[in-house]
Every structure is written in C-alpha cells, then in structure tokens.
C-alpha cells in the first residue's frame, strides 16, 4: 500500500478527480494532512508549472452544487421510473471529456420539456390510482357494504365525513359524547392499523367547531372523489372501473412516449452517469486541500496500481505531480487501509474475521489461520459423513444468494465429511448399525476412545495457542512494542509461562521424567518478569524514568494482571477440551435418538425418529458447535494477537444510493 500525493492545478482539478474516481482503485485518506504547507514538491510544482497568480481560487459553494446535482438525479429518476427505463452505472459513457455536467443538465432540461409533461401526467395518474386503491382498501373494511352514504349526503342540514381514528382518541370522544354536537359511529376496521373507520355526522352550522375538534383528535379524513357515490360496495365497483380507465390512459400515454423512450434511453443513461460522477467529484473535493492555485489530494493505492493511476491522470493533463510514499516509509504516523488478500479456500472466512474487526495494515491477517483451525475444530466437533454432506449441499444452495456464507458452509461440510470417515459415522449411524462403513478410529463413544478424544482437543488447543502467541509476538514487535511483545502476558515471556504451566501438569502426571521444580521455577521467574515488564523495557531501551506514574499503583496493577494471567493460561488450555467434548456430545445426542428408535418395532416410526434426530442435530447442535468454534477463535485465540482496529480499503467508485 502506498500513500499518493496528487498535486495539480486548480483549473484541472475536476478532470483529475474524475479520472481518479473512474480508475476505481484509490482510497481517500481521511486523516488530516499538512501536505500543502510542508511539502517541498508542492512548491516545486508551483514554480515548474508557473501557475502562481494566474487563476486565483474562487470560493465554491459545494453544498449548493451538491444539492442541485441531487435534485437533478431525483428528477431524472422520476422520469425514468415513469418510462420504465432502468438506469445503470456505465463508466464507458464518461470517457468523453467534452460532455460535461453542464451539457448533461441542458440535455435533461430539453428532455423534460419535451417528454416531461406526458411523464408528469403518467406520474399523476399513477398517484391517482394508488389513492383510489387506498380508498378501496378502506371501503372494503366497512362492515355494512350497503350503507346508503348518498342518503346522508343528500341531507339539507347535515354533513358527514368518513375517516380513521385511533382507539385512544375514540375513547376520549366516547367519554364526552353527551357534549358533542356530532354523531360518531364506528363503521369498519382498517387492516394492519391500530385505527378504525368512523363516520361523523354533524349539523352544517357546527362545521368549524367540529373541524377543530377533529383536528385535536388527529382525525384522518378519507377524501372520497366527488364522482364516486353510492354504497361502499357500489363505490368499490366504481373505483375498479375508474382504475381500469386510468390504467388504459397510462398505456396510451406510454405508447406516445415509446418512440421517444427508445431514442432517449442512451442519453438518459449518459446523463445519469455524468450526474452521479459529478456528485462523487464533489464528495471527493471536500477532502482536497486547496492552495492559492493548486490542489493537493492524499490517497492510498496498491503499489501495483500506481502506474495505472498516473497514466489515467496523464490522459487529461500533463501538469501534475504524483509522489509516492510506501506505508513502510511513513511508519507509525499513518494508518493505511487494509485490503485482505486471501485464496479461494480462505476468502469466505473473511466474514468471520470482519465480524470481530479488520486487521490493521501492519497486523498479520488472521484469516488463513482462522480458516484452517476453524475448519479443523468444526470437523472434530461435528464429524459425520451424511450431515456434513447436508451442510455442503445447503452451502451450495446458499452460495447462490449469499456467496461467502454459502462457501463457508460448504467448507465446514467437507471437514465434517472428512472427520465422518475418521469416526465412521453416517447420519449418526456407526459401524455397529452399518458394518460396511469405513472408520479410522472406530466408535466415538467407545470408552477407550473418550480420553484420547478429549486429549486431542487439548493438544489441538496447545498447538493453536502456540501459533496465536507467535502471531501476538510478531504483531507487537512489528509495532515496536517490546514491553508487550517480549515481557507481556501475550509476549515471549507469557508464552514461556504458558508452556511451563503445561509442562508442570505433564510432569505431575509422570509422562515425562523431569522434576516439577524446574517448570515451577520457570513459572515464578516468568511472573516476576511480567510484573517488572515496564522497568525492564525501559532499561533495555535506555529510557527514564523506569516507571511512569505512581510506582505503587503500577505494581498493584501488574500483580493483579499476573493473577489474571495464571487463571487465563489454565482456562485457555482447558477451554479446548470442549473440542473433544462436543465430538462426544455429537455422538451421544444421536445415541439418545437411536435408543428411542429401538423402542419401537414399527420401521416407519423408527425412520421418523431418526430423521427428527438428524434434523435437531443439524440445526440446534450445528448452531451450538458453530458458536463454540467462534468463541474459541474470538476469545482464546484472537485476544492473544488481534486488535482488529484496521480500516478497510474502499476505493472511491461511482455509486448512487
């Protein structure tokens, strides 16, 4: 990753920014920079291009242009909505530099003036149809479909209104009914609403008073078009006829536009692209540092793209400078964005990593490690040929809509199938039930297998934790953090402490012939070093004072941290027992269903019980294993080496929400 400083003249800022957007491989550096005032190259550009004073910068009201642009896009979208034209992003139409924002606006105005009135008419008619359908929907909720509304409207001294009222307000009006100068009747319900339909009949002389009252009650009047009359069922009939008429009107109007539509399809899409490009340019302009007559923009790009970016800008001008500084050169003062690079196998696992956080630029990307360990751990915990195959197929189906999630499930399925062969398990059935089934270790729940399966879980844990410690040490040293990398609880001394703890347990079991005193002494030495990590680092770095702040509070904090380290180291390793335990649990759960199925002689019932058992295992147990696997990754492993505070590399592109 490299930080590019693009310097150009103000006159050419617009085309340069446009090129940067169109090449779709630069990430805006949002951090503040003092590029203009500090960089010699910027001044060099000024003298070389001799642009001083030729074009003084005029204040530009970006908000105004931005809003204008947004307004134009909305108008265009409305028009295309009516014309049923699907607008799409097309970079190629923007390659011509002669067709600019002003041209697009003019063209849009011309099209609106020729087609706008018809399009407006279509839009209004569509609105009328939607209002009529809304009225129809409300009328269909009226209890008495033969209510003679026309008779009420013929009354000389009374008027009526139909509308919606909430239950709460209905209660208010009901309680004071004797003082009202109107009749309020509930005549129907409105589906999917907390309001009901009411009719209010009142003497004409109390119109104002009634209106004020209704406003206080948040009355939502249903405005019925004058030409629709009769009973609710008659009105519904009239609405259907009217909607039909309006639909044919739309059809007619659309036909008249059909010729123009084809003609304008290309140009409308072109206008759309110019407008969204302009919108984006303004967004980028807000990040630009403006000088007297030049601009500076800082962007991040991948090293291999730098040449292409320079060539893109070179197509519109030769008065520009692009300086490049690699992330390494810039050191700790900047925070480069991260672009994850993973192969076909590990890529789907990025979603799990991103759920925790993105690695920062100098951090090791934990995705490959996670992909490998997660697949392995899942397979051990959920090993079954048949159920693994179900996951694989489900993943395949899911990947059509959610590619990464589906692919992830497929990989977990394969791992489950692999371990299914090791355990010899097909939909929970083992060699005892299916003698032809291949198996490497034999029955999972075999008493001689149980201790080795649990032990395997712990051994897997120790191995993955070793790698996690290694990553933690590398990450800390990359950041130059000796205190954490060497003397910290997740550093080299922390790891030595962890290993000593394991060795002491092994010594106690008598597996190796070593006095337990040796590892215990190492543990004590490690703890002392961890307590003194800050002064030791400062001695090593030749810095003073040895302890920053109050020494008392430093030691209290350090000692507590050590107690936490002891507890953590133990729980970390033991935590991995769950890997073996879930393998046993998986077999045990099915055993329960198998026993249930053996209670009946009915073959159909037997099959039903086993199928239900498999469904429960696939859904509930599968989910639990998935979550437990995540827990091990996030809590036991990531906490050792992964901060996850990186920024994702998001190139500026044309897009419109």
């Amino acid at each position, binding site marked *: 990753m490299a930080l590019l400083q693009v310097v150009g003249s103000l006159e050419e800022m617009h085309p340069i920014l446009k090129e940067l957007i169109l090449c779709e491989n630069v990430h805006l550096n949002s951090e503040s920079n003092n590029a203009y005032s500090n960089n010699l190259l910027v001044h060099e550009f000024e003298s070389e291009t001799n642009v001083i004073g030729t074009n003084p910068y005029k204040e530009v009201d970006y908000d105004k242009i931005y809003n204008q642009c947004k307004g134009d896009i909305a108008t265009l979208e409305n028009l295309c909505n009516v014309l049923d034209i699907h607008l799409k992003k097309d970079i190629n139409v923007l390659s011509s530099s002669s067709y600019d924002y002003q041209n697009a606006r003019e063209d849009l105005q011309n099209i609106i003036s020729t087609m706008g009135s018809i399009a407006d008419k279509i839009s209004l008619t569509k609105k009328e149809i939607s209002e009529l359908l809304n009225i129809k929907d409300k009328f269909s909720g009226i209890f008495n479909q033969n209510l003679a509304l026309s008779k009420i409207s013929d009354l000389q001294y009374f008027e009526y209104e139909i509308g919606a009222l*909430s239950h709460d307000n209905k209660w208010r009006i009901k*309680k*004071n009914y004797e*003082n009202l100068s109107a009749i309020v009747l509930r005549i129907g319900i409105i589906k999917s609403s907390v309001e009901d339909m009411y009719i209010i009949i009142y003497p004409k002389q109390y119109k104002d008073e009634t209106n004020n*009252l209704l406003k*206080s*009650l948040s*009355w*939502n*009047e249903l405005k019925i078009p004058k030409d629709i009359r009769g009973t609710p069922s008659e009105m519904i009939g009239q609405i259907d006829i009217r909607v039909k008429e309006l639909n044919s009107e739309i059809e007619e109007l659309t036909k008249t536009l059909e010729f123009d539509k084809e003609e304008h399809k290309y140009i409308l899409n072109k206008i759309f692209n110019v407008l969204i490009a302009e919108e984006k340019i303004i967004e980028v302009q807000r990040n630009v540092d403006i000088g007297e007559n030049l601009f500076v923009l800082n962007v991040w790009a991948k090293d291999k793209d730098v040449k292409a970016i320079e060539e893109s800008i070179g197509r519109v001008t030769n008065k520009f400078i692009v300086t490049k500084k690699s992330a390494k050169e810039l050191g700790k003062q900047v925070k480069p964005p991260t672009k994850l690079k993973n192969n076909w196998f590990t890529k789907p696992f990025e979603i799990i990593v991103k759920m925790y956080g993105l690695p920062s630029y100098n951090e090791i990307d934990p995705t490959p490690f996670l992909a490998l360990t997660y697949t392995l751990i899942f397979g051990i915990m959920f090993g079954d040929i048949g159920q693994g195959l179900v996951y694989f197929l489900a993943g395949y189906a899911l990947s059509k809509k959610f590619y990464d999630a589906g692919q992830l499930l497929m990989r977990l399925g394969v791992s489950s199938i692999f371990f299914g062969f090791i355990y010899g398990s097909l939909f929970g059935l083992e060699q005892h039930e299916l003698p032809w089934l291949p198996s490497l270790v034999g029955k999972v729940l075999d008493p001689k297998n149980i201790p080795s399966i649990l032990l395997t879980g712990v051994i897997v844990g120790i191995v993955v934790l070793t790698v996690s410690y290694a990553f933690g040490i590398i990450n800390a040293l990359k950041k130059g953090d000796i205190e954490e990398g060497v003397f910290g609880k997740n550093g080299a001394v922390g790891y030595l402490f962890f290993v000593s703890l394991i060795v002491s347990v092994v010594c106690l079991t008598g597996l190796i012939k070593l006095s337990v005193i040796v590892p215990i002494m190492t543990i004590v030495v490690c703890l002392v070093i961890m307590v003194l990590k800050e002064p030791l680092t400062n001695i090593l770095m030749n810095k003073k004072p040895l302890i920053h702040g109050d020494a008392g509070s430093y030691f209290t904090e350090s000692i507590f941290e050590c107690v936490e380290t002891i507890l953590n180291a133990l729980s970390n390793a033991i935590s991995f027992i769950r890997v073996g335990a879930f393998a046993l649990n998986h077999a045990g759960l099915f055993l329960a269903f198998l026993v249930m199925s053996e209670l009946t002689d009915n073959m159909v019932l037997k099959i039903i019980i086993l199928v239900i058992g498999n469904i429960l295992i696939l859904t509930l147990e599968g989910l639990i294993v998935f979550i437990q696997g995540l827990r091990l990754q996030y809590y036991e492993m990531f906490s050792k080496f992964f901060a996850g505070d990186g920024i994702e590399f998001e190139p500026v592109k044309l897009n419109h929400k």
Partner: protein
Amino acid sequence: MNPYMAVEAVNTKIVTKQGYLLNKDNWKKLFSFNSVSQLTEFFRNDPEFKIVFKDLSTDEIHRNNLEAFLSKYRTYEIEELLHYFSGHYKSFVQALLIEAEIQDLSLILRKIARDEKLNNIKENFVHSEKYTDLNFDKLLSSRNLLSFTENLKGSLYYNDLRNLTKEDAVKREFHIEMKLQLIFYNNLLKKSEDLCKEDMKIAKDIIGFKIDLENVQWIYRALNYYKISPEEMLIYSINGGRKINYNRLKKLCYIKSNEDFKKTVNSYLKFDFFEELKSKTSNLTIDQHMLKFIKKNKFKGIGTILTYYFLVGIIIYDLTSVTEGIKYNAPKEKILEYLSFKI
C-alpha cells in the same frame, strides 16, 4: 431483589447527585456572580455540569442556549443512569428521554412552519443521540411540513402529526405542544404498566401528581387565554392524574367562572394550587408544588429516579432564572422570588 434495576447503586448515585445539586453553598456562590461570563465559567468548571458545558465556545450565553445546555445535562444524567437498568425498567427510564426529543421536534417544527433556516439549530438539541429512534439529520433535511411529517413515518409521533398544516403549526402552536405532551405522558404511563406491582404504583403516583399539575395549568390557561371549546380542552387533558380523574377533568373543563374553577381544583388537590400564582408564572407554581411533593414523600425503588428526573427539571428552570436575573442586574431578593428551590 429487583433483577432489572440495580436499586442500591441507583440510590447511592442519586443521593450523592441530589446532595450536590441542592448544596446551598453552591447556590450562594451563584449569587455572588455579577456577570453571565462568570456564571458560564462556573458551569464550565463545575464537576457536574462541565460534561455538557465543555462544548460551549462563547462566554455570553443566551437564555435559550443555557436552557439547552442544562437540559442536555438532564439527558446525560438519564443516559448514565440507564446503565443500571434492564428489561422493562430500562424501557421505562428510556421513555423519560422522549421529553427532550419532543423539545427538539417542536424546535424544528416551529422553524419549518415559519420558513426559518435550520442552520445551527443542532447546538440547541437536547435529545439523547444514543437512545433516539428518530433520524434527526433526515428531519433537518425536510423542506416543508409535509416532508417533515413524512420523515416521522413509523415513529411514535406520526399518527398525531401527519395531518399537520402550516396554518396549524403557526396559529395552533399550543395544540401541537399539547399533542406532543400527551404522547410523552401516555407513553410513560404505558411503560409503567410493565414494572412490578409496587414500582408501578409508585410511578403512577408520581407521574399522576405531575399530570394533575399539568392539567390544572392547561385548563386554567385555556379558560383564560385561549378561545377553544371545552371539548377540545378535555381532549388535550392528560389521563392518569393522581387526584383528578377523567370525570373531574370533564367537570373542570366545563366550569364557567374562574372562581369556581379555583375552588374545585383546590378541593380536588387538597392544597391551594393558586396560592402564589398571582405574582408568578404558572410554570413556577407547578415546579414549587412538585418540589414540595418530592420532599414530602420519600419515594423508593423506581421513585428515586423519577423524582430525580423531575427535580433536575426544576433545578434547570431555577438556574435559568438565576442567569436571567444576573444578566439584567436584578436584585438578588427579586431573583430568589422566582426560584422554586428555597435557599
């Protein structure tokens, strides 16, 4: 033990805060200031208020700004106390934040109705950004009342404001305020239904007392200053009063003479509501009665946070009055008259 509320933690926190806010030495210090800038400096360094006053750039502060900053303090306090609640208790306490949200909505609404610019309006916002369901940026982009109400779609406020016209917003401003106030109290009472039996009773008791005071103030104003029908008065009255139930409210709305009204109110409330009303504003009267009520009844459980919320409201009003007094060089004795809290 209530699993949804850390009772002891809340009590301890509130007792300490109350002790600080009502510390008479602090109040006496306020009266020693001769200019608003001294007062502003005091708030900036005050251990309680500095958290909201740190963003204040100017020394000269306008009444509205000061009220906004102090109201932000009330919002901040509730946000902080929310950490000690969960489940239905949390959503009940969260419902208190709606009052601040309503204050901001009214502000935007007023500006839009009067075609005024919405620039810099954000600095006077007092709502909780953490706990609001409204998209205030979207609301601020509203070009007119119609788009404003459309932007409220799906919120607690939409049904009551959807038919709002410009004329309503300008000429019937108090109608909108009453509607919004109704939303606040109705929602709060509704949320109190989910608390445990004992806490629900306490909550309804305190909220009911405040509702009684608000209703009396509203009907009194409507009878004297607004030309509206008794039916409308009744619609805008809040249900759930402690002493004044619906039938009593109805009776009050239809009383013709002022004297009869006062007599009936006092007989319902069992104290003289109008005792000092002649010389003071009705807001102040409400605050004074509320303060007396809070001091007289030592509420426990959910009552501690509820009374604290109302107490902070009263303190804010008093502090605003002190600032006004100092700004216009009013004599100290005169300022004291306009405070609910007696030093």
